[in-house]
């Protein structure tokens, strides 16, 4: 049982550094079992050498390794030894590539390398092998909430992949909104005519599938547990409730049409002949193969579609966003008229026609070909003139006010997501003492942070990430369809498949204790020292994923299958009792303490840099690849997320003679880029309070800087470090050097 050190002398490391002395630093100061050098460590021979040591028997067996070579981003596969705790000491990108050559620099460069080796040795000693917790179970059953086309598609596709699904549908029938439509927009070339909705076929398929169970008239009374072991109470309005267990959840609860009563300017409610798109579907279905008639029985001869009704508008009570499908929906509905009788006048008044892609543009052209008239116009009002309607609008092309008569006006109103309670608003109201939940919860999660999925904007439960649309803040629960984002039927069905993919993945990975993206495959999970815990609940509040509940005694309960291993809880803990086996207060604390802080007379400051491993660290790495120079006084420690930074590290660093601390995390705020959602923000909040600590230590506030750094900041990141050097030049070295 020993720690093996492996020092690579290739890629110029051996040329630039005194490796003999580094070996001795590793063994004597780092106190590891041995340090071997290799001039090409990542070669097969080098890696085989390490693996042989790890395969050895008895005392010779290497159970932890320190790789002293290049950045952890390089040769990752070669130096991946599975569960064996391994520290990567970055001598290439971290030292020789950012320091200029020349004898005047040799001393500080060598010191840098030596410190990093001390740090690596200290880190690996504090690391434990991470194993799965044993909490996990495997359950191949997916709960699908909502029985519209998104939900039905999800259930059927899950079944096709060999998994079970239960559809929980509130109403007494399957089909959702799509079930109320006459037809849908085309899915295949040449995209010219509306097609069957396919709802009947979906229902038949669902009913015939023995892997699918349907609960109609049902809602969810309670959801507890975690991926792989969700426990759900299903309530029924017509019978007894049920208890069921699921491995993962797909929320496909769809949308509610915008309430057109908010649009009195268009005479909605005043005239039965002003209808929404959904109401027109009812008229079209009622008409069957015959002509579409108004409520009063008159056959429609002249219909006007008003696009963006109550949408894309900053007016009070309107929707700011675009619902995406409405242009194509109006086109489809105009075709209902034109296909039955080409002489019916159909006019679409629009601001922008939004029919993207191949299908969209072909469908638009097809409508023009069928004599649907499109006019770029902004509708101000719709007046009721006896039995007729008059649409008043500004024709934006002819630049004049215009009117049109119509016997039916269709309002293209928007979508409101059925996303349940807004847990963030709930929290806010809590603070004011008035809890007012007007919307019923959908999932009724018994999670500490609230009963439903967190919402992104406008009430939709979308992911905030461009690259990761299925990123979820409730692991194992994936939303799909128009509850996630305004979308049309085709996209909703694709979305259902994507969500099912993620649900299946959650089932498979939770069964073996593997983390979900972005730390996919990570087996480590947080645990805490019960005797030290003060039950302050900060970890349960700050966890960006709502993973942590409180047990009956008030202690945190981690639900590791819900955890994403970012360490924000660890950073939050005021008494530092939370840790991961391979990432802890100690693994970082030991590193920063291992640095050799020169006494003040040497005039060599030491700056601790805590850099997010996702963006800031790669940025520093790529700066090094460009050979952008950095200060020799920095000591960089990558962290899983800046949110995992515990203030104790800052205090320890400053208390042990560091002159400054620079923290680099991702962008926070509304357009946050933090991969753990709130991590960077939490770190910023905590560091805003570090000022008190600094002043009790009689240190200048400037000595701690927190920056938002993006992965492209290859020029800026080294400059930020130089700025700290300048600060120290200005305020002087730390008085805490011994």
């Amino acid at each position, binding site marked *: 049982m020993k720690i093996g050190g492996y020092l690579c002398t290739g890629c110029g490391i051996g040329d630039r550094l005194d490796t003999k002395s580094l070996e001795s630093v590793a063994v004597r100061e780092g106190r590891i079992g041995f340090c071997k050098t290799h001039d090409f460590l990542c070669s097969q021979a080098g890696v085989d050498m390490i693996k042989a040591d790890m395969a050895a028997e008895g005392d010779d067996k290497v159970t932890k390794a320190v790789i002293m070579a290049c950045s952890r981003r390089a040769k990752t596969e070669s130096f991946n030894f599975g569960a064996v705790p391994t520290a990567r000491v970055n001598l290439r990108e971290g030292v020789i590539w950012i320091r200029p050559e020349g004898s005047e620099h040799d001393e500080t460069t060598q010191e840098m390398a030596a410190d990093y080796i001390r740090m690596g040795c200290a880190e690996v000693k504090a690391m434990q092998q991470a194993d799965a917790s044993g909490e996990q179970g495997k359950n191949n059953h997916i709960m699908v909430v909502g029985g519209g086309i998104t939900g039905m598609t999800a259930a059927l596709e899950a079944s096709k992949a060999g998994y079970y699904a239960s559809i929980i549908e509130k109403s007494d029938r399957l089909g959702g909104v799509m079930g109320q439509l006459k037809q849908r927009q085309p899915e295949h070339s040449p995209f010219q005519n509306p097609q069957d909705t396919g709802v009947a076929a979906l229902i038949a398929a669902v009913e015939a599938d023995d892997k699918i169970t349907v609960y109609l008239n049902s809602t969810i009374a309670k959801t507890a547990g975690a991926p792989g072991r969700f426990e759900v109470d299903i309530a029924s309005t017509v019978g007894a409730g049920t208890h069921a267990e699921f491995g993962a959840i797909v929320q496909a609860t769809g949308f509610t049409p915008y309430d057109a009563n908010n649009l009195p300017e268009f005479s909605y409610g005043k005239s039965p002949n002003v209808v929404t798109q959904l109401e027109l579907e009812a008229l079209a279905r009622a008409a069957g193969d015959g002509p579409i008639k108004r409520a009063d029985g008159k056959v429609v001869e002249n219909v006007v579609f008003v696009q963006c009704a109550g949408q894309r508008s900053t007016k009070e009570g309107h929707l700011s966003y675009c619902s995406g499908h409405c242009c194509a929906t109006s086109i489809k509905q105009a075709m209902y008229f034109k296909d039955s009788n080409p002489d019916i006048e159909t006019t679409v008044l629009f601001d922008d026609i939004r029919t993207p892609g191949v299908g969209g543009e072909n469908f*638009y052209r097809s409508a*023009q*070909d069928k004599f649907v008239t*499109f*006019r770029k116009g902004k509708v101000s009002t719709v007046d009721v003139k006896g039995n007729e309607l008059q649409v008043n609008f500004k*024709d934006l*092309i002819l630049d004049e006010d215009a009117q049109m008569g119509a016997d039916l006006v269709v309002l293209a109103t928007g979508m409101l997501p059925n996303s349940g309670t807004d847990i963030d608003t709930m929290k806010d109201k809590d603070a004011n003492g008035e809890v007012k939940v007007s919307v019923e919860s959908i999932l009724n999660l018994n999670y500490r942070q609230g009963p439903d999925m967190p919402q992104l904007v406008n009430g939709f439960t979308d992911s905030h990430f461009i690259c990761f649309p299925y990123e979820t803040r409730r692991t194992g629960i994936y939303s799909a369809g128009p509850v996630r984002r305004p979308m049309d039927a085709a996209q909703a069905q694709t979305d259902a498949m994507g969500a099912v993919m993620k649900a299946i993945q959650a089932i498979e990975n939770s069964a073996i204790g593997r983390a979900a993206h972005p730390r996919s495959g990570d087996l480590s999970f947080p645990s805490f020292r019960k005797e030290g815990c003060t039950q302050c609940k900060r970890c349960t509040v700050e966890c960006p994923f709502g993973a942590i509940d409180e047990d009956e005694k008030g202690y945190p309960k981690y639900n590791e299958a819900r955890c994403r291993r970012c360490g924000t809880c660890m950073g939050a803990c005021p008494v530092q009792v939370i840790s991961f086996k391979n990432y802890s207060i100690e693994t970082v604390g030991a590193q920063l303490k291992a640095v050799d802080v020169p006494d003040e007379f040497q005039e060599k400051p030491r700056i601790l840099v805590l850099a997010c491993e996702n963006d800031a660290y790669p940025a520093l790495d790529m700066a090094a690849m460009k050979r952008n120079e950095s200060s020799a006084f920095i000591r960089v420690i990558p962290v899983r997320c800046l949110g995992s930074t515990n203030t104790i590290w800052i205090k320890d660093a400053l208390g042990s003679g560091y002159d400054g601390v620079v923290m680099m995390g991702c962008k926070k705020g509304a357009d946050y880029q933090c991969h753990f959602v709130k991590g960077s923000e939490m770190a910023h909040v905590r560091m805003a309070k570090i000022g008190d600590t600094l002043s009790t230590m009689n240190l200048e506030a400037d000595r701690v800087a927190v920056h938002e750094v993006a992965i492209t900041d290859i020029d800026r990141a080294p400059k930020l470090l130089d700025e700290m050097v300048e600060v120290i030049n200005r305020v002087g070295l730390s008085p805490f050097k011994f």
Partner: protein
Amino acid sequence: MTTAVNQAMVEKYKGNFLKEVTDNVEEGNWVKMCMQCGVCSGSCPLGPHWDHPPQELFMMIRANKREEVLSSTSMWMCTSCYNCVARCPRGLPITHIMHGLAHYGKRMGMKPKNQPTEKFGQMFWDNLIKKGRVNELKLGLGLYFKDGFAEGVKVSMGKQKLGMNMMKAKRMSPMEILGGHGVSDLSGFHAMLKKAEELEAARVGANTDAK
């Protein structure tokens, strides 16, 4: 004939000018496909001289501005350069539609007053019909005298040098005044055109039949 046809058309299409254009104007069935990008309007060499550029005319057709469109001078600004046709993203044969609208407006008795291209164009047609081939000299003289004799003398005096140059270069022949080139099967040629005119009139006329 024009007013009668015009009345019949107004009667038949009752405010659906797009349909009227589709049914009766050369390549008019393309008008519905315009998406108002305006590339035609920006491409025209005589652009600034159009009261209503093609894309706007297409919008006016949808807005049922029948009178304004058919009596517009705009279509008569077309030089047949085909820039609009080459660039139109929807493939509209705009040049032909402009010709068609101009011709149709004229047929409906709504041609703009004293539009020089309309006048010249008619002269050209008459000239070519006469012999089957264009007599450039007569066409040129006709052009100079289109606004009356006195005006014509003034214009042709001004063009004297030009004419002399052309004659010197043997690119204009005074002999043409005596008759000049032509097709030999002139009667057949005339019969053919007459038939074509009849067929076309019948087609447009048919469109005026009551529903």
